[in-house]
Every structure is written in structure tokens, then in C-alpha cells.
């Protein structure tokens, strides 16, 4: 498995598309810096808030490209046969590639997070806002939540790649899953508050969302940005349950992917 992690890391860092997306990430951090100009009261809070959103967007895209590059394309072009000709299990290939993607995500996260810190520190230098943003532990806990979020999306994309016969499918499914998982919390909240008084709408959708809630994890649960932005720390219990939910879901989809890969014929 270690060989697959190392080769995955090498391949991931060399990829051209990844460099483009990475540049996009740095642009998004610059956007975070500029967005501070749009806030009269809390410019650094807005810069950090937009930066977190930009980081998630970039990391999701990066992870999907890496899954695409390291797994989906290998399967599509039958290069995987060469990898599997070594005396290693298919599980080692799958989990090796997954951990390679995670390692690449962690590396990118560190670079983007440091860039974001710099952007926030430099934004609005002549204004000392009343409520300071938490750039210490709260910031890094939120960043860890982002990585967990991305790791779930990567697991889903990877599992999709094991059954997909079209190389673009993991990217599309992963992107759709990332949006749906993130929006689920807002949807549940919206319906719980009566859908702005639209009772028929709330009744019609409550059942469906209740079903979807069991099929797709609520990724907004691992978004703890209220802590660095507004000083509202999540409880340890909430963090623990949210992390467990994300890890368990990743394990489920990876297990399904493993099963699919074991049974797949590469003719």
C-alpha cells in the first residue's frame, strides 16, 4: 500500500490540472483579502469567512481531480492492470490511493491555510474591529473540519470510480455530493423552521429530506467556523459525533468501493 501512496503523491504533485486548480485556490485567498473591503464593521471576519468557503471549494475540486487522475483514469485506460500485476491486493491499491489523496489534501490545506492567515492578517490594517477573529486553535480546528469534509467527498468519488465506466463520473458525482451534503443542514433547518410559513411545501419535503438525511451525511456538521469568526465554540460532544459520522460514512463507502473493485473484471 505504501508504494501506491508514494506513487500517488508523486503523480498528484506533477499533474498540470492540479497546478491550475491550486492557482485558483490562491486566487480565492486573494478574493478573501479583497472581500474585507466590503465590510464596514468586521472586515477580517468576512475575509476569513469567504476564505473558508474558498478553501473548501478549492480542496473539493483538488481532491476530485486527484481521484480522477490517480484512480478513475487508471481504470478507464486499463493502466490499473499494470498496477495490479504486482503481488498486491486491490484493497492496497484502493486505500493506498485514498491515503495519497488525503496526504495531498493535507499538504494543500496547510499551504492554503497559511495563505489565508496571511490574507486575514493583512486585510484592513487601519481598522481594529470590536470582535477579533480567532486565528489560533479555533482557526486550525475549523481547518481540520474542512479536511474531514473533503475526505468524505474524496471517499465517495473514489468509490464511484470503482464502478464507473466513464472517467468523468466520479468528478460529477463527487461535486454533486459535496453540494448536497453541505446544503443538507440548511435544508433540514429550513424545514424545521416551517419553510418560511409555507406549510404545504414543508409537509411535501419533510419526508423526502428525512430519507435523504440517512443516505447523505450532513457535511455542515463539520463546519465549525462560528468558533474563529464569532467566538462560539462547538461542544466537544458535537465535534466528536460529527467526526465519527464523517469517518464512519467514509469507511462505509470505501468498503463498498473495495467490494466493487474486487469483483470488477478488467477485460
Amino acid at each position, binding site marked *: 500500500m505504501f508504494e501506491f501512496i508514494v506513487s500517488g503523491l508523486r503523480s498528484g504533485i506533477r499533474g498540470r490540472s492540479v497546478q491550475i486548480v491550486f492557482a485558483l485556490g490562491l486566487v480565492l485567498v486573494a478574493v478573501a483579502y479583497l472581500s474585507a473591503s466590503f465590510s464596514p464593521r468586521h472586515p477580517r471576519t468576512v475575509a476569513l469567512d469567504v476564505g473558508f468557503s474558498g478553501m473548501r471549494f478549492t480542496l473539493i475540486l483538488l481532491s476530485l481531480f486527484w481521484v480522477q487522475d490517480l484512480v478513475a483514469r487508471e481504470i478507464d485506460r486499463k493502466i490499473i492492470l499494470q498496477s495490479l500485476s504486482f503481488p498486491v491486493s486491490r484493497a492496497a491499491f484502493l486505500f493506498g490511493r485514498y491515503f495519497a489523496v488525503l496526504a495531498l489534501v493535507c499538504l494543500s490545506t496547510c499551504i492554503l491555510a497559511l495563505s489565508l492567515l496571511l490574507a486575514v492578517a493583512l486585510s484592513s490594517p487601519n481598522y481594529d474591529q470590536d470582535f477579533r477573529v480567532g486565528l489560533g486553535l479555533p482557526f486550525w480546528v475549523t481547518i481540520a473540519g474542512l479536511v474531514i469534509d473533503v475526505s468524505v467527498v474524496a471517499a465517495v468519488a473514489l468509490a464511484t470510480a470503482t464502478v464507473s465506466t466513464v472517467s468523468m463520473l466520479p468528478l460529477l458525482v463527487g461535486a454533486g455530493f459535496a453540494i448536497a451534503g453541505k446544503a443538507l443542514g*440548511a435544508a433540514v433547518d429550513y424545514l424545521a423552521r416551517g419553510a418560511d410559513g409555507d406549510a404545504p411545501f414543508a409537509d411535501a419535503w419533510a419526508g423526502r429530506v428525512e430519507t435523504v438525511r440517512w443516505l447523505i451525511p450532513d457535511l455542515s456538521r463539520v463546519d465549525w467556523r462560528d468558533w474563529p469568526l464569532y467566538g462560539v465554540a462547538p461542544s466537544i460532544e458535537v465535534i466528536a459525533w460529527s467526526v465519527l459520522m464523517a469517518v464512519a460514512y467514509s469507511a462505509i463507502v470505501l468498503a463498498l468501493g473495495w467490494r466493487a473493485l474486487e469483483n470488477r473484471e478488467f477485460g
Partner: protein
Amino acid sequence: MGLMPFRPNGFAVLLVPALLAYVATIAALSGQRPPSIAPELSARLPLAAQVIMAGGDRYLAANMAGFRVLVADTFRMKSDEFATQAQLQKDISWLNPAHEDNYYIAAAILSQPHLIPAAQYVLRRAADARPRDWTPLFYYGFNLYHFEKNPAAAAQALLEGVSRTQDVAEQWGLQALAARWIERGYRTDEAARLVGQMADNAPPGTFRRYMKFRAERLVQLDRLKTMALKFRDMYGRSPTRIEDLVDARLIERVPVDPLGVGFAIDTAGEPGFRDTVKAGNR
């Protein structure tokens, strides 16, 4: 020498009609202007669309709507655009209730009577989502007092904000204002009790003395009101001056207001503070 025969090729077949069509469209469109679009906030997307457009990220959706509200030119906005802005600010509050610019703009701009419910929605949610910030509670209380004419609830909002600030001057300011609003919002005996409690809870010093003065004058006013009722029972008419109560031996002398304002009786025969009783009172 004969003329060369015209042999149309594919290039000319594509280019000539395209050029003619292009020139014709330019001529046709030159006299037309696009319909004027309302300059600012004329439309609002449903919440679900805002969230989806932000990739499912409700914080990003709140920021995008927040930028839109922030750059709106309120001087040029019409009444219906203010209504859209109010709804947009409620959306931002729903997406991210702690958004500081949003509650600040809501407090500043949504001040017309029909927009106050939206402002109060934004401010109450901001107060709940920002446990260290007393300002949304101040604006919330201000609207309750001035627009909803509910001084008792307004005073409670201010008192809720007291524990959120470490600045003693801010704490005193909020409590002093709350005491004034309590005087207007509660029965006098109840107001005296509440302000007395606030004085007891204040740290020893100038501010506690000030609050005790406010409680004391409320106690005096309550006693004057009770005596005015007795006067009515005795003489079948209302007193017209505070001195009437002294003459009737219901009080020993005209009480001294510790804040120096003094007491008076209004046109309905009801005792009150001299600065608050209606014009023409004695």
C-alpha cells in the same frame, strides 16, 4: 477577354449572408434601448437557490447577499426595493444570524414602521447568535421602545445586554437607560422594585447611588399616587397641585426628588415627574 464565371465556394456562402445579417442587426438595434432596469434591489432569489448557488455553503450565500445589500444605493431606492432589502436581510440572518454587517445595516436602514418587524427578526437572531455582543440587543430594545411602544420589553432587552460587556461604563449606560424605560413601562411600584434590585446588584459607588436615587424617587412617586387616590376619595375630586396633598395632611411635605427634577400633577390629576407630565400641568 471574358468575365470570370462566378463560382460560389463554401467560405463565401457563409461569410456574405453572415455579414449582411450582422449589418442589418446593428442597424435594427441602433434605435432601440433595452428596457430600464430598476437600479438596486428589485429581485430576491428563494433561499434554496441562494444556498445551491453558493455550492451548499450557507455562510458563502450569506456573504454574497451581504455584499449585495451593502452596495445598494439607499438614496435611490423606492419603497418596494426597501421591502426586498428587508427580505434579503432576513435571508442573510437565516443563513448566518451572527453576520455583524447585516444586523448593523438592518438597525440603520430598516427603520420605517412596516420594515421594523424585519429589523427585529434580524436583531433578535443576531443577539442570540452573538453571545458576547450587546449592540444587537440595544438596537432591538430601541426599536421596541420607540416603534413598538413597549418600554417594559425594551428595558428587558437592555438588561439582557448588560452581562455581555466588560466595560463598566457601558454596563452603567445600559442599566441607566433600562431604568428610565422601566419607569415608563411598568406600574410605579413594580418599577421601583425593579430599579431597587438593579441598585442592589450594582457595585458600591457612584452608579449604585445613582440607581438608588432613581429607585427612591419611584417609591416617592408611588406614594404620591396612592395619596392622590385617597384625596379623591376624601374630596370627590382630583388634586391639582402636590401641595393639595400636604394641605389635606396626607403627606407631611412636598417630597424632594433626589435627581432634582421634582414632582407635579398632570391634567388628569395623576402625580408624575415634572419633566414627563403633560404640558399645562401644575
